[in-house]
């Protein structure tokens, strides 16, 4: 990796000032940034370590029943916070379905929001990639793209956003708190990540030097009893989603008052499914209703390559998430969080198996 300056500012203000220099990046846990630096995708001139900034590692409950999560709160700490997991079970489930235990112990909330795509052509510096090098083209378009986007893509970019955590956050209208050269501002999470358009594949709306300092979730008690995140992956753990869905229902008996729905791994951003939510209002919670909602969610889906099967899967994972959510949030976190598989009760081998 290239030589760079390493700074460890003592305060938020110092950090923001330091990052005003072009070529600067913020370092929190580094679970994504350091990998990208090692493979040459990111070559910063100045690394600003914010991991020890005071005050950003707290989970604070707000008077209105919502919660404020500091940007440096670790994924594991948030997922295992009992009050948080009870209030936002789908968020906790999404967190625990991501990466590995070691990575979750290190990775931060703020970093998770800004993790880069796992598109192989983004990571391969010899490939053309409009994300990595605007204007260079997109080698994924005609390449190995069976897991690429089926919603919101353009010929500029067909990559997906890899985060699990962001999927329920998008459904819950999370608000991102940003500190920058121009002071503090807030954004709904739906406005944080950008879809590619006809000319650009810019990932987020953050300006150079902007720092996410926290995240707020509005009160959502009515949804907590019927909230799931379900993730289909090619191995049971330590894999990014093929498709995933967060579904949260406010139920009145078996009638849906309102819902929150988002899909993961289908687009360059966590995909809030407003049309599906609208289709569920006042409906009975049953298979037919869920099929209708899933059809609405994926009405605009189209393959970006060798990935038409992902549209089928996205539809079905959403039906599954709605079905599981309507059955009620599990009393305890499943042993394999977000797995579409029911808990397995394989009999343990009995006794000594040696015939000899």
């Amino acid at each position, binding site marked *: *990796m*290239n*030589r760079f300056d390493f700074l460890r500012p003592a305060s938020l203000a110092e950090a923001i000032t330091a990052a005003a220099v072009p070529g600067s990046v913020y370092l929190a846990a580094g679970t994504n940034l350091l990998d990208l630096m090692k*493979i*040459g995708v990111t070559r910063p001139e100045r690394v600003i370590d914010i991991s020890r900034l005071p005050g950003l590692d707290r989970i604070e409950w707000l008077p209105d029943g919502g919660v404020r999560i500091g940007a440096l709160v670790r994924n594991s700490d948030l997922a295992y916070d009992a009050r948080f997991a009870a209030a936002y079970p789908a968020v906790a489930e999404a967190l625990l379905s991501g990466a590995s235990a070691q990575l979750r112990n290190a990775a931060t909330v703020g970093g998770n929001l800004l993790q880069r795509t*796992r598109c*192989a*052509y983004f990571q*391969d510096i*010899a*490939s053309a990639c409009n994300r990595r090098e605007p204007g260079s083209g997109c*080698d994924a378009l*005609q*390449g*190995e793209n*069976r897991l690429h986007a089926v919603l919101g893509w353009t010929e500029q970019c067909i990559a997906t956003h890899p985060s699990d955590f962001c999927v329920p956050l998008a459904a819950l209208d999370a608000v991102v708190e940003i500190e920058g050269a121009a002071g503090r501002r807030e954004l709904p999470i739906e406005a944080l990540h950008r879809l590619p358009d006809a000319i650009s594949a810019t990932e987020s709306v953050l300006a150079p030097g902007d720092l996410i300092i926290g995240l707020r979730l509005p009160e959502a008690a009515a949804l907590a009893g019927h909230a799931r995140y379900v993730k*289909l992956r*090619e*191995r*049971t*753990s*330590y*894999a*990014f989603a*093929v498709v995933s869905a967060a579904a949260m229902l406010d139920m009145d008996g078996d009638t849906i008052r309102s819902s929150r729905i988002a899909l993961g791994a289908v687009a360059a951003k966590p995909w809030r499914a407003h049309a599906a939510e609208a289709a569920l209002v006042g409906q009975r919670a049953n298979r037919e209703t869920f099929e209708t909602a899933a059809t609405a969610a994926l009405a605009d889906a189209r393959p970006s390559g060798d990935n038409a*099967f992902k549209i*089928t*899967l996205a539809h*079905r*994972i959403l*039906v*599954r998430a709605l079905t599981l959510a309507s059955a009620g949030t599990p009393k305890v976190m499943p042993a*394999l969080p977000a797995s*579409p*598989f*029911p808990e*397995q009760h*394989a*009999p*343990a*081998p009995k006794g000594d*198996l*040696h*015939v*000899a």
Partner: protein
Amino acid sequence: MSPEPSSLQRTPSEPKAAISRYGSNAGQPLTRRDGILKVTGRATYAADNHPEGMVFAVTAVSRIARGRVRSMNIEAARAHPGVIEVLTSANRPPLFHDPDEKMPPFGFRVEVLQDDGVRYANQPIALVIAETLEAATEGAALLDPQYDVEPARVGLDTGLRFDPPGVGVGGAPMTAFGDIEAGFSKAAITMEADYETPPQYHNAMEPHAVVAEWDGDHVVLDMPNQALALSCATYAAFFGIPVENVTIRSPFLGGGFGSKAIINGPQILAILAARMLKRPVKLALTRAQMYGPVGHRGQTWQRLRMGMESDGQLTALHHRSISATSAFDDFLEPAANASLPLYASPAILVEHEGLRLDTGTPGPMRAPGEASGSAALEVAIDEAAEACGMDPLEFRLKNYAETEPGTNKPFSSKALRTCYAEGAARFGWSRRPLSAGQMRDDDGLLVGWGMGTAVFHCPHFPAEARATLRADGTALVETGAADMGQGAWTALAQIAAEALGLDIDEVEFHSGLSTLPDAGIAGGSGHTASAGLALNQAGGDAIAQLSDLAVNDPASPLFGAGNIGVTARGGRLHRRDDEDRSESYAEILARAGRSDIVGTAKSARDPDVASTHALYSHGAVFAEVKIDPDLGQIRTTRLIGAFAAGRVINPRLVQSQYFGGMIWGLSFALHEEAVTDKRTGRIMNADLAEYHVPVNADVPPLEAILVPEDDAIVNPIGVKGVGEIGITGTVGAIANAVWHATGKRVRKFPIRIEDVLSA
């Protein structure tokens, strides 16, 4: 610098009685002698070495798959702070062996900057040496090579087909028994299908690494290595020095799977740089750099045809494989040979065609040929059974080979029938519905059961060992074996201890060093048998010498027992006809005025055995899968194997080897594939995040049944091999279970979600 390095002190030892060993003599499930060293981080691997003055080497690798390097920015790399030297094809010092010349028996052409040509993506095109790893890495990045690019040949349609002179390591490309066409013409039922297996990479946990330190024309190499003596000879040839001037220290390997048995270009370059700079040099490949110059399992396209009588009796078996290799060297998966030893068809034809692709040269990867060939064969057998309306186990028993097909040689031992019976009983196979799509569990998941036959040949490598009985009655046992994680430190010491009649804690075992007697190659599942036989015979030699001292010494209670003989047990020799008359080793040595007795052995397979007998391990694997009917996600929920592989030296380690093989088979069936961009020839998932191997949660509770099998023929210690057989059978068992659950016959590995997704 002494050629007897300090790492000799790395001999694994544990505090005595620190933990229960569950008995230590051969046949007992002794825990690993190196276990505590490993879990406490005291077992040092090659890259853990930091000799004084050491510098770091990093290879710059090609981003194209075919063409030539037009230019590189050498100046930028050299100007980077800390960079000491940049080696390219323009300034690389000479080697004493032509790298484009193969060196038998396991030699391959290597890329060591002999020209500016690029033959595959990830080929080394420069070596940057610097004071720090970071400086060397950045120096390599600054080279910014420019290429003349030629189109990459990737896949069946663009590669060059050819008739190979051989397959695997010196195997015949075609073997035929009986009249294959006559067999098909009299068949009442036939099956024919095509199968495809992907390129796979070894991905040993420990990357290929070397720390090279020269002293004049002597060199000491810390490197993980599966074939010490062979490698020393190869390095000696490359560097123009006597073989005894090369010392390789390889106390532990973090996995090898075949990829550390063969010399590779990056390691040669690092050794060359150390000689040139007169400083110790370390090179460790990154994970991504392991996808190219250090071998892989080549892709195959296989076709199987079978003819059967109406009762399921095979009349013809035809297995053809197109096996991919590189554009510049040959290693072809001998996949079709998997159809030779198992099923009793009167006519068998196996044949191979080669396909040249712009990849690194493939190499032996755990069960080379057997894994991909068995994957196709065992699915084809399932399809043949289906075509005959027969249960797959019944079909296999119908075609059970009582002697080796074609040669009619008797098997040295073959407890496969027992494997079938034990495995089937444990699994509950008799309750399996014949047709597919019949079973669902309480959660509505599709359930399928499948099986496969496991088989692996029993190679035997020449090996040497030395056993020294010491004055205090303990022993020093030496052989240059390789512990790749399979437990050689433990199992081989058990064999030595048994031969010497000592408790294992009385045996100091030295291994993993090339200056020790040559233990042969740790490959082909033959290490325990090969090195074990040498240890057994060296121990026997020492005991025989000791016995001579005792029975010829009038002062010994064993005097005169020469004709009756003595047995060695518990550190004492006992008169065979009177166990109470005995004497300790120490007493015998002391009275003879000897400080020690040195037993030696050079062992090899009796050539008559191989010419008169067929030598194989066997097994049967049974798998249950559950599949989500909407989402197509597959999980293996039960996996039971029953294996017969001759004498079991350590049931704990043997079971672990079977488990490891079965997990490897699961990985082959459902996960592993190197994905290549068809335009550039670059592998797009060259890291462990995207090149999937199973995580623990993918692996169900495993069962491996150790079926007893006495084999007095295969070798004098009765040991076959267990390292690779677990893969064979398992791949097919899982694929067949997927069919049984869904009715979908997937013939391309790995089986993916979209392959089984219902409309």
